[in-house]
């Protein structure tokens, strides 16, 4: 199986990505992410086999409390690919590979423009626990009950 990675920059890949999602909630996230990509606010990196996109992650740069962060805007893996680990991805799941890719991009940017943390807002409690236990993110809960996870690059 040959995995490839490519990216969408300053375009709206809505029609290419929307078909990956089965639920309205995910479709809404994808719609907003694609709008952000078309405005050049977000770059979407996607992993694919042949013509099929298996998963993607949208990232942008943000300052949080004046600290420069690479922010994971949204990450999505097609349902049929979620549970499997792939030998080609160093025995990692696609979501793990995509987060690792974000970390590598963050480290690369850090050496060019200055960047301190990777930040993400988990979509649900189950994912939050996974990110904290597996990737060692540190959680901050805001007064408005928004959970943000950080890891130093």
């Amino acid at each position, binding site marked *: 199986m040959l995995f490839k990675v490519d990216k969408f920059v300053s375009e709206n890949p809505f029609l290419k990505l929307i078909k990956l999602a089965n639920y309205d909630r995910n479709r809404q*996230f994808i719609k907003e992410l694609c709008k952000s990509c078309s405005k050049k606010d977000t770059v979407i990196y996607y992993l694919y086999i042949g013509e099929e996109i298996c998963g993607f992650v949208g990232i942008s740069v943000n300052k949080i409390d004046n600290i420069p962060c690479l922010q994971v805007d949204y990450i999505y893996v097609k349902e049929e690919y979620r549970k499997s680990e792939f030998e080609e991805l160093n025995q*990692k799941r696609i979501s793990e590979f995509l987060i690792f890719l974000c*970390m*590598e991009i963050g480290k690369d940017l850090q050496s060019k423009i200055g960047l301190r943390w990777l930040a993400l807002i988990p979509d649900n409690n189950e994912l939050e626990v996974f990110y904290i236990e597996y990737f*060692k993110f540190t959680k901050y809960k805001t007064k408005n009950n928004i959970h943000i996870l950080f890891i130093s690059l």
Partner: protein
Amino acid sequence: MAFIYKNGKVEDLNISDIKLPKYLIKKIDNNIEAKKILIEASETIKKAKVVYAF
């Protein structure tokens, strides 16, 4: 841009003006386990048999 799902709709979420407590900033910066994960991330990206089309 961050997004949040609220009352059945996905909305933009501005998190730039959030104030983080100093203890948390230190905790994040000094997270030793996180540094190991970054090494693992780097090794995984190097070892993965993936073609980059950009």
